């Protein structure tokens, strides 16, 4: 069974009398342990697709199954539960709580699933250590560099050991050197067994993945495997 299966996914935004189809029938499947990049021009529907996959939003039409469960029929609480336990989301703009320390930001998902305070602390510290930020636990986002902020976001995404790590242009706000470091981290996470879906504009970044999906105008335009030789990064 595939981890992700979508069947003819549509997402339509209604703006006044106009119907804007952000997605027009996307059908695909992603297996557990895959490392997938989604590419496409601006406005093609990449973020819309990611939000659906991440259960932040529900499709207008079509079916989406995560781990065999149909997401379309789920109520708000069930979706929240999935976001909490199954999915780790990394955003282009980091989306950290500005007033909270890195540690508290990473603890956040654990607060909402009832993990005890001491365990929260321990798991958050572990996650921060994985992204090599154990030294900066008590810093607020404003006291961290862009790359460090994004690593906090990655730690937060990983803290619950989700089945799926989603990253929507995680390097969009980072310089190229920091971006390379971030991609090394993703390669490492993939090697450790995480399923990763990553949206990017840059072919360079996309080539870290093992499979590249291209989206054009809300539809899947191509689905290519990246041969080992073409891949970026040492991991292979």
């Amino acid at each position, binding site marked *: 069974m595939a981890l992700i299966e979508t069947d003819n996914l549509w997402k339509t935004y209604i703006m006044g009398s106009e119907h804007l189809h952000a997605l027009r029938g996307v059908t695909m499947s992603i297996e557990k342990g895959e490392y997938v990049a989604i590419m496409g021009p601006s406005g093609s529907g990449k973020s819309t697709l990611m939000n659906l996959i*991440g259960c932040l939003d529900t499709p207008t039409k079509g079916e989406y199954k995560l781990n065999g469960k149909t997401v379309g029929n789920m109520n708000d609480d069930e979706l929240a539960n999935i*976001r*909490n336990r199954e999915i780790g*989301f990394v955003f282009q703009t980091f989306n950290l*709580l500005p007033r909270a320390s890195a540690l508290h930001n990473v603890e956040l*998902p654990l607060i909402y699933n009832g993990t005890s*305070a001491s365990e929260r602390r321990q798991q958050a510290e572990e996650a921060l250590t994985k992204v090599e930020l154990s030294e900066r636990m008590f810093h607020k986002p404003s006291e961290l560099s862009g790359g460090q902020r994004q690593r906090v976001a990655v730690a*937060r995404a990983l803290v619950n050991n989700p089945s799926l790590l989603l990253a929507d242009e995680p390097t969009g706000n980072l310089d190229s050197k920091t971006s390379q470091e971030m991609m090394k981290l993703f390669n490492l996470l993939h090697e450790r067994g995480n399923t990763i879906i990553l949206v990017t504009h840059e072919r360079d970044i996309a080539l870290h993945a093992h499979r590249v999906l291209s989206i054009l105008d809300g539809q899947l335009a191509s689905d290519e495997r990246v041969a080992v030789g073409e891949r970026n990064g040492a991991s292979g």
Partner: protein
Amino acid sequence: MIVVPLIGLAWQALWANKLRSGLTLLGVVVGFTSVMTIISALEGMMGAIEDDLARLGPTTFIVQKWGIVTSEEQWLEVVKRKPFDKETGELISEGCELCETVAYSTGTGTDNVQYRGTNIRDVRVSGTTADYIDIVDLEVSEGRFHSFEDDVYRRHVAFIGDAVRERLYEGLDPIGRDVRIDGVKYTIIGVAKKQGGVFGGDERDSFVMIPFETFTKHYGFRGERMNYFVKAQSLETMDQAMDEVRMILRAKRHVPYDKPDDFAILTADNILEFLNSVTRMFRLGLVGVSSVSVVVGGIVVMNIMMVSVSERTREIGIRKSVGAKQSHILTQFLFEALITTFSGGLIGIIAGFLVAKSLVGMIDVDISPSGLAITLGLSISVGIGVIFGIYPAMKAARLDPIKALSYE
């Protein structure tokens, strides 16, 4: 349960915005302070009146023509009643087995009282029998009250209230000096201890008491204004004693069996009940008006919460994206409101009590904290938090995660 960490989040959010939280709190504090001040002061005042009435003693009742008149109709009935006659007092003291003492008291209203050319008005002059002082809580500070002999021999002696001493005999020892009442000379034999008044006036201490028979000699027997102070033998027999007196008087005054009494019997309890009933509307009105300020405090909370929810839209989106349910967001925001109104209520209750204490302290009344008022106040503060916090909290909880995340 997960509620505890959510309360922690609520607390952190309030703490992160100290100035705003403080100002909101102030709005709530002001509301509760004003209500609590009024409630405590009223309670203190009623308590003081109650204490005053308690001086009558729980086993004493007063028989008089008038009673408490609360309507015009009643008034028309009461004026038609026969005055008491001279034998009434004796009939009561001889006929009532369960009565211990029957003292008489009568008066003229207010009179002029003079000492060496100084003239004061508004003094109650009354004639009382010697045992009056045993029934009523009136203490002698100097000299003595008039005696049985003074009464029998119709001596011209006077027992004066503290205000009279102060106004006519400042710096002098009044005992043995004379006082003129309506031109007649009396010798002062005693001074009463100061009683003080609920509203700070000295009207309770502005009196002169002379022996009953002496009074009758000068002013005649005033059946209209007779008060029979009857002390029952015990608290248990008080009701029976009152019945006995009632039967004696009905027989004496030929009241048909199917007609109500044509005289009144007053106890401290029914006077208090009357006072309570006439002041109830007034007190409710005051409390009602001041409650508006609590509601205003609630509106301040709601207003600030609405601002806070819209400012923190992105934060709410972040929380939802990592798995916060609607109920989690609702709980956090509701607790932000509740912490504010509850602590504002608590501070306001304490402050209001202290303000009330110093206010009524000015008129010599002391108050102690009332458990009921505190419990009620705190419950209301929680209620206000829920009522005014629920809407903004629901608004926060229902935000769409994607829209909230992309909110600038």
